């Protein structure tokens, strides 16, 4: 009688656990199903460049080993709490008092030491292969400078300066053309992180860091600043455009030219050059040569403004100039308090900076 009672309780408990687990699995499935357009997601498990790929393979090994350890230890814990629970109606004597065992201790010391050694050797290999990779002669050089709260990209060998949207050529694995980045900071710490291309590396004032990428697929890769750098750290987004070699060459040719000069927006240019914009911004070929804000020579060749937070449309541009805080509270660009006429003229002028 008593036994069947216990069995019933056990069965009901087991059913409860099964229902719970099923619900949990369903929820997880739903969540994964709900994910739209995974191509935009900066998923570290979808590498498209050698450093990210090496890390991905290392992570698979680490996950396999830690997963195995988890299964073994988890089972041991579950087994011991189920098997050695105090049973109803059992006697009240204390269990045998065991103080330890040197053999067992030795076993669970030596095995983890061996596991750690294996993990370390695998890791050291990847550290070396990513950090100490030689720079092939065909590589590109870009200097990335972190600012509060945007990215400056300078191509010293090409004489190009741009912001927030890094263009690099695709790298054919058989004839690699990787891009090596020198990382500097103009103010506080930042971190360059485009998960599908490489792990993050910090940009630290008074320090020269570097990293490299060799993307194998053309496309846009998203990332963002990964080191707290002040008020608008959250809106310091980063886009890497991986172009085919032809596209990239075309882009370079275009970026090398000085700013377009269009008679029809003379008024806007006057506003730009007389209201303080030129203190911070450069437009090559004009008097504007400020270095504090992004280079605007080819502003219209960029898809986004304000470090990737809004599409580069005349409306957004107007909103941004009128009051930068409305898009990005705490941005270091001041609101210039322009009247509507000047604002329209200025937006029209910027619209010609293709």
């Amino acid at each position: 009688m008593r036994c069947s009672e216990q069995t019933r309780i056990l069965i009901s408990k087991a059913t409860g656990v099964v229902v719970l687990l099923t619900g949990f699995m369903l929820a997880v499935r739903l969540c994964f199903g709900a994910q739209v357009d995974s191509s935009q997601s900066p998923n570290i498990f979808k590498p498209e460049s050698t450093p990210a790929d090496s890390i991905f393979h290392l992570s698979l090994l680490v996950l396999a080993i830690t997963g195995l350890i988890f299964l073994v230890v988890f089972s041991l814990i579950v087994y011991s709490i189920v098997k050695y629970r105090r049973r109803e109606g059992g006697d009240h004597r204390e269990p045998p008092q065991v103080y330890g065992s040197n053999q067992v201790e030795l076993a669970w010391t030596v095995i983890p030491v061996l596991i750690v050694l294996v993990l370390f050797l695998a890791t050291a290999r990847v550290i070396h292969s990513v950090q100490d990779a030689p720079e092939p002669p065909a590589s590109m050089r870009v200097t990335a400078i972190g600012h509060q709260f945007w990215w400056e990209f300078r191509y010293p060998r090409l004489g190009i300066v741009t912001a927030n949207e890094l263009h690099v050529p695709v790298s054919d694995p058989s004839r690699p053309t990787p891009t090596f980045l020198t990382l500097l900071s103009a103010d506080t710490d930042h971190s360059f992180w485009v998960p599908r291309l490489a792990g993050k590396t910090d940009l630290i004032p008074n320090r020269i860091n570097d990293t490299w990428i060799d993307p194998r697929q053309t496309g846009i890769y998203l990332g963002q600043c990964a080191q707290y750098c002040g008020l608008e750290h959250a809106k310091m987004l980063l886009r890497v455009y991986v172009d085919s070699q032809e596209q990239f060459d075309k882009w370079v040719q275009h970026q090398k030219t000085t700013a377009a000069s269009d008679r029809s927006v003379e008024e806007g240019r006057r506003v730009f050059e007389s209201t303080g914009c030129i203190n911070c911004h450069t437009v090559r070929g004009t008097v504007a040569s400020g270095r504090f804000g992004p280079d605007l020579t080819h502003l219209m060749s960029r898809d986004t403004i304000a470090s990737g937070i809004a599409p580069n449309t005349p409306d957004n541009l107007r909103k941004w100039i009128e009051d930068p805080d409305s898009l990005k509270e705490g941005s270091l660009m001041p609101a210039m308090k322009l009247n509507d006429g000047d604002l329209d003229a200025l937006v029209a002028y910027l619209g010609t900076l293709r």
Partner: protein
Amino acid sequence: MASDSIAINSPDVSTRPVSERLHDWVVTVDHKKLGILYIVYALGFLVIGGIEATLMRIQLMVPNNHFVSPEVFNRLFTMHGTTMIFFVAMPILFGFGTYLIPLMIGTRDMAFPRLNALSFWLTAFGGFLLYFSVIGGNGLYGAGNAPDVGWFAYAPLTSRPFSLGHSTDFWTLGLLVSGIGSIGTAVNFITTILCMRCPGMTLGKMPLLAWLNLVMAGMVILAVSPLTAAQIMLCVDRYLGGHFFDTQAGGSAVLWMHFFWIFGHPEVYVLIIPAFAFASEIIPVFSRKPIFGYPVMVAATICIGFVSLSVWAHHMFTVGMSSYANSFFTITTMAVGVPTGIKIFNWIGTMWGGKIQFKAPMLFCIGFLFQFLIAGLTGIMLAASPFDWQLGNSYFVVAHFHYVIVGGILFTLFAAFYYWFPKMSGRMYSETLAKWHFWLFLIGFHLTFDFMHIPGLLGMPRRIYTYEPGRGWEIWNLIVTVGVLFQIAGVLAFVGNLLWSLAKGEVAGNDPWDAWTLEWSTTSPPPEYNFARIPVVESRRPLWDVKHPEDPDWKYE
């Protein structure tokens, strides 16, 4: 044995006015009262830190949310981190140590009772200074503000050009003052444990809780001192024209990172080792077996103490150290996993062959075992430095260290609360409410922190007050926030349980758990002098020897 008390008619305190009784608490040098002061103080800050976390989770529930402004969000995560580490975790663990160590080693108070009081009040003043920034941060005219530089306050954000006003100064001074309090407590722990043990209690017969707190205290002295030094250097930078961390004048941002993390990583072990101590006392009692492999547990702890002093730069894998430095800190960090693993195996060994009673303290310890296992394994992932280049400073790391601090430390703290509550208050808690607390908190914990790993893997960095839609982060952030509701419900059950039990709980008696260490041989709550006669012990489990004279421990140790 020591269970009889001295026959002195104590004055009837209940008739004295409240002001006089409060005065007693303020001027007390009794380790038990100070321990409770620490704990109550930390619980107050736990609620504040919890509210800060809840506000952040509401903000992050959906993308591009406008629940709080970026300024407020940055202050929230700075205050949440600083509060939880310095004014919740450390004081609450010091509180339990202060309360329990003299009782467990059979003495009447700490070695330096007045230093003990000074340490507590310094810590308390540090917390006050930190929160005074909310009204004092910007000088008298502004509305005031809290620090917003993050809890590790990387240079040069703390330098004057980037941090105007006084909020960073309140942060610096708060930690400086409470750090001196922590060093005082550590000195007191070490002296008490080394010099005040009762007759017969050699180091090898000391309860594990005392051993682990001894190691912890040693680490506090080694770890908190550099932090205190760094805070002084930061003050010099800000007010006396120094340039240690002032990058605009040639200072080094990386120097601050080294100073902070040579404190910050041992600090993690400063917090987790007392948590290990609770587990090492509670699991044996509820498994009805002595701790498995006592000498190995002691050795593993000392090993963790030493190795953890050489792992700090694993917080800095992305700052551009050489491949040799990265390899070194990878191997040392992975090596810590070995003694930690040994501890987990020994706790399983303790349960193995026992008769496990699933009372609330044991439930929380089992939760701790599972969660600490996972936290340790994600720690191994982060130790592999290339993997850390992806995971570092992402939500994966946030999930990992909350797994350690909430899943590990807070769970054992709850276990410790339920286990020693009868001793401290003289009354039993409600087991039903405690089970509600356990299950609600467990569900909430896993909803929040299991799912928090995923946005990290999908490239979501920490410390962002909002995020863009369409990156696959939304659903996970929503689940994480939902989990908070369960955690709040669990904590409400806990607080309700404490208050109800203080007033109406059953009288506990001296030894409600049929336990084996000395604190259970005296009354609940213990008299001011702890023991009428100083006990004499012969083994690690003196009360076992008393209860089982036919089969005493000292024959086998």
